[in-house]
């Protein structure tokens, strides 16, 4: 396959030579050569089509833009201040990291989907007063939230591969389309395997990043991961997971909470289209 692929630049020359030959006399040898050249060309295009299946398709800017505008919408976080800060909310197809010291509100994002909050959220939005309807709606909403406990990174990989397989299979109906995936917290799975002199931990972290971004883009999911803080230079805390992790998420946000005033502050560390260093404050109830 390598040899055939190396003759790719020669395919144009082959076409020219074949054209020249077909213009000459119709002798038997010439016809034989033309047949060989034809089969070479076919062989080359066959090899090319096989190699083409080994990578994602080539797109041009217009097709990419069309896909982004059709499928990659923005999901609201439920907190108005955060939504306006992020120009809409979490973007589908992007991996967002939320870093912050412990008990700063990042896990509240996960607990935001408890049944008590859902009921509260529905009653705020003027749902019908009868309690039976209410319970039915809550049940339907809760049945769309799946929660898995994962204590090891290999189990997380297993689950993500299963999800990828299920989403990619033909029998996926409208009901099983995933919109948001939250991993709380990715640092507690990765930190135990980093370091120790070998590169296995870093390679697992990189593979996890690639798998999450692939899921996000191919299946139109918004992914949110949380990260904790460690001590950095000059005593300032910095997000954990080191230098290699910094280039993996699309969006990196820093959350800090002040309990006396009950306000939280969110700022951007990295964003593909918004300026870094901006911040906003809001109150979580």
């Amino acid at each position, binding site marked *: 396959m390598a040899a055939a692929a190396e003759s*790719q630049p020669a395919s144009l020359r082959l076409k020219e030579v074949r054209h020249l030959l077909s213009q000459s006399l119709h002798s038997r040898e010439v016809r034989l050569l033309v047949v060989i050249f034809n089969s070479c060309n076919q062989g080359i295009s066959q090899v090319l089509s096989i190699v*083409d299946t080994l990578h994602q398709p*080539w797109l041009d800017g217009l097709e990419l833009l069309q896909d982004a505008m059709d499928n990659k919408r923005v999901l609201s976080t439920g907190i108005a201040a955060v939504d306006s800060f992020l120009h809409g909310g979490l973007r589908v197809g992007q991996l967002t990291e939320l870093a912050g010291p412990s008990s700063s509100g990042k896990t509240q994002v996960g607990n935001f989907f408890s049944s008590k909050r859902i009921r509260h959220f529905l009653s705020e939005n003027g749902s019908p007063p009868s309690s039976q309807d209410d319970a039915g709606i809550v049940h339907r909403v809760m049945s769309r939230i799946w929660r898995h406990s994962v204590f090891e990174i290999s189990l997380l990989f297993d689950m993500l591969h299963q999800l990828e397989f299920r989403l990619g299979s033909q029998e996926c109906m409208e009901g099983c389309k995933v919109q948001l995936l939250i991993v709380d917290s990715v640092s507690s799975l990765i930190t135990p395997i980093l370091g120790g002199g070998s*590169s296995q931990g870093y*390679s*697992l972290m990189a593979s996890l990043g690639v798998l999450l971004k*692939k899921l996000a883009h191919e299946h139109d999911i918004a992914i949110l991961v949380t990260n904790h803080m460690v001590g950095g230079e000059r005593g300032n805390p910095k997000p954990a997971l080191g230098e290699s992790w910094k*280039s993996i998420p699309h969006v990196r946000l820093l959350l800090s909470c002040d309990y006396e005033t009950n306000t939280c502050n969110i700022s951007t560390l990295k964003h593909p289209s918004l*300026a870094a260093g901006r911040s906003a404050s809001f109150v979580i109830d």
Partner: protein
Amino acid sequence: MAARAWIETDETAKEMLSRVLTKSPPFQFRPPLHRLPLRAGNVVEITGPSPSAKTHILIHAAIDCILPGQWKGVDYGGLDRLVVYIDLDCKFDVLRLSHLLKLRITEAGSGLLFDDGEELHSLCMKRFLYVRCYSSLEFLSALKTLHHQLVERVVEEEVEEGSGVHCLMIDNIGAFHWMDRAVSSAAKSLPGCNGRRGISLDSIVEAVVREMKKVLVVHPMLVMVTKATVLGGDRSGSNDVTQNSSYREFMPLVWQSFVTHRLLVRAVDDDSCEQTRYLLEWLLSSPRSFVERFLVKDAGLSCDL
């Protein structure tokens, strides 16, 4: 007489210079990339920690490439080339590219009709070829099919001979570094691998360089590559402009010898300014190096001072 013809000169230096300049004209980018003339065959490596606006620099250069020089009587100052963007980081935001392109078109052609602007926008976006790669193997197979893609596009658009020089951009060549390193250490421990050169980080990077050289022979291109530092930099805490941050080089020697130009980008802590300033430095062999400062604004990179 054949021997005499062999000794005689083929062309003078003046003729050669004019031939090279017309066949592969230099790439003239807007600031902050305007310092050194870049031409086909150059490999520019943009290194920096994350985040340091490296992808933004690529988008800035890509817009310069895909815009036409002149279109319907309006001067856009572009280079009228194709851009091939290989996304290894999988983080490219096409909406940002589209937004910056629209701003550039409205800025240059202020009296342009809406339909004309849309038409130019589509024309430029069609010149931007994009592929995502989720592993080194996908990257290698994309490089193998790159020639075929370019030939198809040239045939479709009937591009003339002279403007066949394009730009190849690769976002984050170090994206699969850790995964390739782990593959090599795993392969060594397998029994029965003695005497056979297995997959290793070095062999993968060698294959990448080989494929790129093959494509560059047939399609002379300017290659711009970003590289995020995966190992922590040695920062002594000072914001000295002239100090070279010593980021450890992790790419194998075969890649280092393939690169012809090096650019270092980093964010500068500036408490006086709200926006983060970035510093761009061309690493040259001479003691004098070019340093540019720029900001990332909504309308793109802006070089002040």
